[in-house]
């Protein structure tokens, strides 16, 4: 069995249509049963995710986004402490900052933002979001194939949920 070295974390709420792109993505990813990949999903990121990411060499956060070009954008992110008022969730780069300060671990991290369109109450993805998910899944499967990831790293400014 290959060692699990990459964690893929989906974020979002499946009860809010395309906001559930992250968890839906994780469901599809699990079905692929890729070697060396751990997958998890939750409504939002929180402090305990710092402990989770600290245990991996590489982490990919998967989230829905509005203000990006379809079908998806994948960028490398770095630790950055940023907070909203009384929020009960953390941004991916803040989770990385916590991992660095609490556990002295800073995994190489990427944000895979998938374009969503409908964030109203309801189940299931919109048709366009569904197609974007498939494209993003294909990209990630290729990206994490052994020996290919390093060549596909792309530097970018830290992304936040609010500028997605």
């Amino acid at each position, binding site marked *: 069995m290959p060692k699990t070295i990459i964690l893929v974390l989906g974020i979002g709420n499946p*009860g809010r249509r395309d*906001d559930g792109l992250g*968890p839906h993505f994780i469901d599809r990813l699990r079905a692929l049963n890729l070697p060396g990949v751990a997958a998890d999903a*939750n*409504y*939002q990121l929180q402090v305990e995710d710092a402990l989770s990411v600290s245990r991996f060499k590489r982490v990919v956060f998967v989230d829905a986004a509005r203000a990006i070009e379809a079908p998806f954008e994948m960028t490398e992110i770095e630790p950055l402490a940023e907070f909203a008022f*009384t*929020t009960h969730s953390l941004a991916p780069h803040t989770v990385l*900052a*916590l991992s660095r300060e609490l556990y002295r671990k800073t995994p190489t991290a990427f944000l895979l933002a998938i374009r969503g369109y409908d964030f109203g109450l309801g189940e299931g993805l919109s048709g366009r979001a569904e197609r974007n998910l498939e494209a993003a899944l294909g990209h990630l499967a290729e990206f994490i194939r052994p020996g290919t990831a390093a060549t596909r790293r792309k530097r970018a400014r830290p992304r936040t949920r609010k500028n997605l």
Partner: protein
Amino acid sequence: MAKKITIEPVTRVEGHGKVTLHFDDRGKLIQSRFHVVEFRGFERFVQGRPYWEAPVLVQRLCGICPVSHHLAAAKAMDLVVGADPDSLPPTAEKMRRLMHYGQMLQSHALHFFHLVSPDLLFGVDADPAVRNIVGVALKHKDLAVRGVLLRKFGQEVILATAGKKIHGTGAVPGGINKNLSPQERDSFLKGPAPLNADTMIDWAQGALDFFKSYHKKNKAFIDGFAEFPSNHLSLVRKDGALDFYHGVLRAVDANGHKILDDIDYRDYLRHIAEEVRTWSYMKFPYLKSLGKDKGWYRVGPLARLNTCDFIPSPRAQKEFEEFRAYTSGKPNSMSLHSHWARLVELLHAAEVIKELLLDPDLQGTVLTYRGRKSGEGIGLIEAPRGTLFHHYRVDANDLIAMANLIVSTTNNNEPMNRAVHWVAQNVLSEKPQITEGMLNQVEVAIRAYDPCLSCATHALGAMPLEVSIVDPRGLVLDCRRR
């Protein structure tokens, strides 16, 4: 120049709050409002769905405390399938309790370590770049690590009892769909270190001691900040004990006199109404017997410790006695004492989790009960932020025909407005310049109630805020966003 301050969020998620402060030409406060700018539509979303889906569906209300909605809906649907609280199998009731107290543990730990400890450690005037959980991690690593692990322990308890992180399915109408295996039980009781119940009790006590030590050195601030009298409402066990999962409804006034004397919560509509105000989508609940102006009340940790007679776990009871003695047995009306009360509850939750784990009923095999069906169900629960009401009517085809939800943050709507008004009046009014530190005190006041606006507005997601300063002509002069 006259001005108005508004606090409003920037986010892709709709559920958000806004604070608007109106000042006259001399900088004197004219009006303050904490309002919500989100249409609530969740009740309609569940209409037409089969009743048995409700405990899973309602978790979509909120990514912050989905377990509360899951259990409140399950309690309501128990009545629909004819399983009143006394007929629920012991395994079902205790598994639900374990799930709920696990949630209390993780939610209260998150609130204290993530949101409150930065204010206490760095001061409310500190730069927001430092006054946050990463700042705590840098300067007080042990405290931050404990916060992370307390939260994680609670999350693991929820996973073991609800079955899933998202849209858990543990509670079903009439019971539960799994028990706790001996392996799961042992993992929580014996490790892996430090993740075990005894450590959680010790760390909860440590957090409480930390707050009390801070309080001793900062009494004037903690006691005086946003202090105002109110009524208090919560569930209590039939014998008056603190109980987060089930009980009767009790309300007391500012002097401790009972307004609601341990009533059956299924009669809530006879006693509680909701007022609509044009400037907010969040309603204003009140006790009918006192009317709109005097009938508003607090819910949540502070209210719970004001309404209950005792706490049924030894270490938390000792702390409760100290808490009540501080106000000579009278209800405590100091907003920042919510943090003290929340930490007493954190300790109680940790103690109850251990007690439940030692109970062999959790390995029982009778998981559900069904009796004579009914067309209506009402479920109440004490969520981390306060009393949560779920009320459903089900038609002859087993479809939900009506849903009414009063969430904890809605119950605290008027108290939060009062707290914001206190800050506007005492900190901001007639000041030549409004600083970032002053504005943060608006947040400190709201934070004491740990609101979840995404939940209260029946939208989903984060809960940011925007503050605006407005002049008498309605012109926005300054706007700060978080």
